[in-house]
């Protein structure tokens, strides 16, 4: 369970309202694949990932990034029950996709960097701190049903 104060929860939600979920999702997934190239192992069917430019412009990356961030958005509405919210996705990532949960933590941190890039001065240390609790919460929830 993620322990955020009432104030942190409001701040997280308020900030999320300003996020272009579609774009940020693609940006975060793209940067994950560029900065941590071994993560490309899960996306061999996505086409050209050979350069940073190719990755960031790849339509499949953008589409999948949007999907991933939409799930994250959903999680933000259920901070008191992330494990329940992500139970089915956890099973999917373990049983069908075989993704090492460490990758969820990496993506969480890349997302924080992208938020900083997009929100600049609004991404205060206090807000970063709140998101640094939310991101691992989501990552842990996704790892929870692994066996």
């Amino acid at each position, binding site marked *: 369970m993620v322990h955020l104060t009432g104030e942190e929860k409001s701040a997280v939600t308020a900030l999320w309202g300003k996020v272009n979920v579609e774009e940020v999702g693609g940006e975060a997934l793209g940067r994950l694949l560029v*900065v941590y190239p071994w993560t490309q192992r899960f996306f061999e069917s996505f086409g050209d990932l050979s350069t940073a430019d190719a990755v960031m412009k790849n339509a499949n990356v953008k589409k999948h990034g949007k999907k991933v961030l939409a799930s994250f958005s959903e999680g933000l509405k259920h901070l008191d029950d992330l494990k329940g919210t992500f139970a089915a996705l956890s099973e999917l990532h373990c049983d069908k996709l075989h993704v090492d949960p460490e990758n969820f933590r990496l993506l969480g941190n890349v997302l924080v960097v992208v938020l900083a*890039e997009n929100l600049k001065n609004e991404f205060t240390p206090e807000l970063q701190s709140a998101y640094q609790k939310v991101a691992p919460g989501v990552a842990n929830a996704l790892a929870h049903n692994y066996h």
Partner: protein
Amino acid sequence: MVLGAADRTAVRALWLKLGSNVGVYTTEALERTFQAFPSTKTYFLHLDLSPGSAQVRAHGQKVADALTLAVDHLDDLPSALSALRELHAHKLRVDPVKFQLLVHCLLVTLARHYPGDFSPSLQASLNKFLSHVISALAPNCH
């Protein structure tokens, strides 16, 4: 992850651009680290960690100077950073995982100040460079 020629060029170019402001960013990175990852404060019981603290700023400048030293010695980080390794690994005994947290917050800080310029490939090069710095500070590195 090998620090290739393109990575070195990117890191050196970034450092030239940051100029004398490196300390400003490393200080902000430290402040963010203490805020987001409170366990890191356990290594700084001797410092005033309140917002705007001059002591944190001074430590930020030390970190900046060390990173600048690293940028100037990309061909031999372990040797250039040997005194700092001795200090952090053997005297201060900092869990190396903590350096990752500071690196993350430094990336966040630079992304915040340079949106648009902070491209994915720059982030990748910077991440590789900082990973090499962390390795050079680890106790088992010779």
